């Protein structure tokens, strides 16, 4: 009987929601949450322990969290380490990738996780491990666990894992030599592709190039003491009645709020509607996310010239890159129109 250990966050570990996102790691014998389904799907393998760690704790105290968990695993029998599935929860995906990488390096066991393609964990970790292409919501649990278990079972049995497309994981940039079943040599395949290309027909390359989406660095502001600065945030700071009905997660809407005559944002007048963290601190003092108070003082001190009359808000949790891009594109004309020179984005 082989042995597996599963990592989950506070939510799937059933210790609580956002209010427990700061929870330090704990280890439990047996199976909690998704670990129970892994126990069913893994062949001839026992899930001996479940590790639970709050997403914020892992994000903000990464070294400590990783060291604690590695300490917990020390001396335990383990043939494979599984984390998630993390779906479209940004912090959870990064946590799964972080701990899988550390476990793989320290103990040399195979690791498998799952996340949605719209999350930051994918690009950060896909080269280091098998990351199955996961669903965007937790109702995909069954199929995501199954997909992870499918790869895990092969690893446990020492069977070869198929290519990324067949197995459903994110391509890792590793090349394997394979013999095609029909035996068509490379020269013939290349000429076929070339002919298709010349004829304007679709063809499929055997060596796709990774796409790196980088933006050239915008030149610095030359005359900061006369520059106009704008403040944006994805931390969900809105007037208490949330007039634009911005969603608490997976946002598609944004708002802008006039602060021309506001020296500091007051609790009770502004709050956060972000569902991805405990709102207590930001509700009490919204300046901890949107530092209007500090910006007004810095402006008076002459560090910069003026503050754009509005700050801009959306919510970053679960929000897809496509929606984020669109919202930014909708905000930009307002910044241009008012002659803004530079922008501060606070993200949570």
């Amino acid at each position: 009987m082989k042995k597996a250990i599963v990592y989950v966050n506070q939510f799937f570990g059933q210790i609580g929601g956002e209010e427990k996102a700061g929870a330090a790691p704990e280890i439990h014998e047996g199976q909690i949450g998704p670990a129970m389904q892994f126990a069913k799907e893994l062949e001839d393998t026992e899930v001996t322990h479940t590790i639970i760690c709050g997403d914020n704790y892992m994000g903000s105290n990464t070294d400590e969290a990783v060291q604690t968990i590695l300490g917990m695993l020390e001396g335990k029998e383990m043939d494979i380490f599984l984390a998630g599935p993390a779906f479209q929860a940004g912090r959870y995906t990064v946590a799964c990738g972080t701990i899988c990488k550390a476990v793989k390096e320290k103990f040399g066991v195979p690791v498998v996780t799952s996340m949605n393609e719209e999350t930051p964990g994918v690009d950060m970790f896909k080269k280091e491990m098998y990351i199955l292409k996961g669903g965007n919501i937790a109702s995909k649990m069954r199929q995501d666990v199954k997909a992870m278990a499918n790869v895990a079972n092969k690893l446990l049995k020492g069977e070869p894992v198929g290519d990324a497309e067949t197995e459903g994981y994110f391509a890792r940039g590793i090349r394997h030599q394979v013999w095609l079943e029909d035996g068509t040599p490379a020269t013939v395949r290349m000429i076929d592709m070339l002919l298709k290309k010349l004829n304007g027909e679709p063809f499929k390359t055997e060596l796709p190039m990774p796409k790196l989406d980088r933006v050239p660095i915008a030149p610095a502001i030359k005359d900061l003491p006369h520059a106009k600065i704008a403040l944006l945030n994805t931390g969900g700071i809105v007037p208490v009645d949330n007039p634009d009905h911005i969603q608490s997660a997976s946002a598609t809407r944004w708002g802008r709020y006039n602060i021309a005559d506001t020296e500091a944002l007051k609790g009770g007048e502004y709050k956060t509607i972000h569902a991805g963290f405990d709102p207590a601190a930001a509700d009490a003092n919204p300046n901890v996310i949107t530092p209007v108070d500090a910006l007004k003082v810095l402006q008076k001190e002459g560090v910069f010239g003026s503050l754009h009359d509005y700050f801009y808000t959306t919510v970053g949790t679960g929000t897809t890159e496509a929606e984020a891009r669109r919202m930014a594109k909708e905000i930009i004309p307002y910044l241009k129109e008012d002659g803004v020179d530079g922008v501060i984005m606070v993200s949570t």
Partner: protein
Amino acid sequence: MVKEVEKAGFPIVQMCNLIPVAKTVGSNRIVPTISIPYPLGDPGTSKEDQWKLRYHRTKVAVESLGIDIKEQTVFKV
């Protein structure tokens, strides 16, 4: 969002806690904050300490917009 704003020609600084994420996504100017629920002021510390931290990091962020950089940069706080 940061990349779209920068693409439009604005220098932009991202203040955030998850630096590796900002780096991977491709933010060019980054100033670290202290946590996710309270990036700029730990409610467990005194009001004065919170203000000092917020004032300092916001100042670093503003000033980073006036500094020419050649590569992705995490500014020291």
